C-alpha cells in the first residue's frame, strides 16, 4: 500500500522549518527532494569506495566502475531500452537534448529541412532546435495548443516532411500529458526521427521507450529523487552509432596518435571526461526507490493529489487554472493565475507560510507569450506530497488575497 506518511519519513528535509513554519514543498517539478537512501548511497561512495572509473586496475577503481556501470543497466531496465549501449549519461535533460542537437542535428539537418516542435516546450527542448534551424537555415515549425492547453490534432500534419520531431511528454507549465506514442508513430511514418523530453514524465509514470517508439528520450535525475548533475539520453543504437560526439577528450576515445583519434564503443563514445560517479550511483539508488514504490502506484498517488489540487484550486475564488481540466490528462503539477496579483507576489507571500511554489515563466517564454500572460504560478507534487499540503496552499492563497485586499 502507498503510505505517504511512511514515505515522508525517508525525506529528512520535509521535517525542516521555513520562516518558522513547517515546510510545504510544492516545487517538485523544479527539483524533487531526495530520500535518505539516495543521500546515503552518495556519501557511502565518498566515504568508503571513492575512485575514478574506467581506468585504474586497483580494487577500488574496479569496484567504482562496476557500481557506476550497474546504474546504466538499472536505467536501461527502468526505461525499457533494448541495450545498455543505448543509455548515455548526461548531467541533465538539457545536455541530453544538446547531445542530439550537436551529434545528430549538425550532421543531418541541411538547408531547407524541417524541424517540428511544440509551443509548450521548455527552453531546453526549444532553444537547441531554434538555434540549429538558424545555423543550418532550416525551418522550425511549432504545433500549437488549444484553449485547454492540449496539442491541436489538426496541427500534427506539420510533421509531414519533417526530419525531426521534438516533443515533451509532459508540459512543465500546462501539465499536459502528450500522446507521445502517437506523435512518434506519425513521425516514424513520415520518415522523421523523434525526440521525447521526459523531464516531467519520468518521475510520475512508467517509461517505456520501446512502446513510445521514439528515437531519442531525454531525462533528468534531479526530478526523480536522484542527485543534481545526473541525467541521461536514450537513443536507438542504430541512430546513436552514426552520431558524432559532442565532447572530445578522455574516455570517449579508443586510440589517439599525434595525427588522429578513433572513438570508443557505445555508449562511452558520448561520455567524454571523468563522469559524475557518486551522484550517478545515487541515481541508481533513486531508481531502486521508485521501483520499490512501483511506478503504477506512484502515478495513481500523483493523479489523486493532482485531482485534489484541481478541485480545491478550482473552488478558490480568483484562481484561474492553466491547462487540462482532468487529472488523468496531466502530469503532477497545476499551473495557475491569481486574479490581480503578480505570481512573484503570490510566491513571496506563500513563502511566509513555509509554502514553496514556483512563479515566473518556468523557462517557457514562448508558451507564456502564446497564452498572453507574462508569468504564472505552479504547484507541483511528488511521492511525498499529501492532501493537507494542498489545503495549506489554498489557505495561503486566501492570505495573499487578503494582503492585496
Amino acid at each position, binding site marked *: 500500500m502507498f503510505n505517504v506518511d511512511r514515505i515522508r519519513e525517508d525525506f529528512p528535509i520535509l521535517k525542516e522549518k521555513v520562516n518558522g513554519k513547517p515546510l510545504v514543498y510544492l516545487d517538485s517539478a523544479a527539483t524533487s527532494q531526495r530520500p535518505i537512501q539516495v543521500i546515503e548511497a552518495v556519501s557511502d561512495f565518498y566515504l568508503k569506495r571513492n575512485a575514478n572509473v574506467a581506468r585504474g586496475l586497483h580494487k577500488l577503481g574496479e569496484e567504482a566502475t562496476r557500481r557506476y556501470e550497474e546504474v546504466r543497466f538499472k536505467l536501461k531496465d527502468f526505461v525499457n531500452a533494448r541495450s545498455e549501449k543505448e543509455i548515455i549519461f548526461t548531467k541533465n535533460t538539457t545536455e541530453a537534448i544538446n547531445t542530439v542537437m550537436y551529434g545528430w542535428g549538425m550532421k543531418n539537418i541541411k538547408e531547407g529541412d524541417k524541424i517540428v516542435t511544440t509551443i509548450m516546450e521548455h527552453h531546453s527542448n526549444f532553444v537547441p532546435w531554434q538555434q540549429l534551424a538558424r545555423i543550418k537555415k532550416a525551418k522550425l515549425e511549432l504545433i500549437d495548443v488549444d484553449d485547454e492547453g492540449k496539442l491541436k490534432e489538426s496541427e500534427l500534419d506539420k510533421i509531414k516532411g519533417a526530419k525531426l520531431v521534438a516533443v515533451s511528454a509532459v508540459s512543465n507549465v500546462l501539465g499536459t500529458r502528450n500522446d507521445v506514442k502517437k506523435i512518434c508513430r506519425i513521425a516514424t511514418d513520415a520518415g522523421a526521427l523523434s525526440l521525447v523530453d521526459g523531464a516531467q514524465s519520468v518521475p510520475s509514470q512508467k517509461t517505456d521507450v520501446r512502446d513510445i517508439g521514439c528515437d531519442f528520450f531525454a531525462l533528468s535525475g534531479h526530478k526523480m529523487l536522484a542527485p543534481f548533475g545526473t541525467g541521461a539520453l536514450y537513443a536507438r543504437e542504430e541512430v546513436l552509432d552514426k552520431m558524432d560526439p559532442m565532447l572530445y577528450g578522455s574516455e570517449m576515445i579508443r586510440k589517439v596518435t599525434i595525427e588522429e583519434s578513433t572513438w570508443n564503443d557505445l555508449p562511452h563514445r558520448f561520455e567524454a571526461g571523468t563522469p559524475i560517479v557518486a551522484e550517478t550511483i545515487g541515481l541508481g539508488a533513486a531508481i531502486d526507490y521508485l521501483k520499490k514504490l512501483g511506478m503504477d502506484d506512484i502515478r495513481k498517488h500523483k493523479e489523486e493529489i493532482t485531482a485534489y489540487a484541481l478541485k480545491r484550486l478550482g473552488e478558490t475564488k480568483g484562481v484561474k487554472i492553466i491547462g487540462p481540466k482532468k487529472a488523468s490528462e496531466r502530469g503532477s503539477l497545476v499551473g495557475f493565475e491569481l486574479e490581480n*496579483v503578480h505570481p*512573484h507576489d503570490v510566491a*513571496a*507571500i506563500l513563502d*511566509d507560510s513555509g509554502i514553496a511554489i514556483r*512563479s515566473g*515563466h518556468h523557462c517557457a517564454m514562448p508558451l507564456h507569450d502564446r497564452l498572453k500572460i*507574462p508569468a504564472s504560478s505552479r504547484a507541483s507534487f511528488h511521492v511525498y506530497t499529501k492532501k493537507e499540503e494542498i489545503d495549506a496552499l489554498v489557505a495561503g492563497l486566501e492570505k495573499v488575497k487578503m494582503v492585496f*485586499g
Partner: protein
Amino acid sequence: MDSQDIYQEYIIELYKNPLNFGTIADADYSAEAFNPTCGDRIVLYLKVSGGKVTEARHSGEGCAISQASASLLTESMKGKTLEELKALTKDDVMRLIRIDLSKNPTRIRCALLPLDALMKAIGASK
C-alpha cells in the same frame, strides 16, 4: 522574511493604481529593462525640456515591488536634470520605496528594475 513588512498598504495601492502609468509616443528618452529570472519588464519614457524632466512614464508588467518602484521613481524624476538622474543610486531607490529588502536579494532586483531602465534610457550604466 515576513512579507507583511514588504507589502505595505501604499505598495499595494501603487500596484493597483500606479502613478505615471502609460507610454509617451514622442519620448526624448526611453528604454526597456527585463528581469529574465521572473519575466518582469519595465519600459521607461522621459520628456525633457529646458534641461529638465517634464514628463516621466512607465509601462510593462511586473510584481508589486517593481511596479511601486516604477511609480515612485518616475514621480521623483520630474523637474530633475539629466545629470541629477545619472547620479541616482540604488540607495536612492531604496529610500523612495521605504521598505527593507536587505533580507530579500531577489526582491531587490525587482525594486531596481525601473532604475536599470532609466540608466539604459539616458545612456548611463550602473
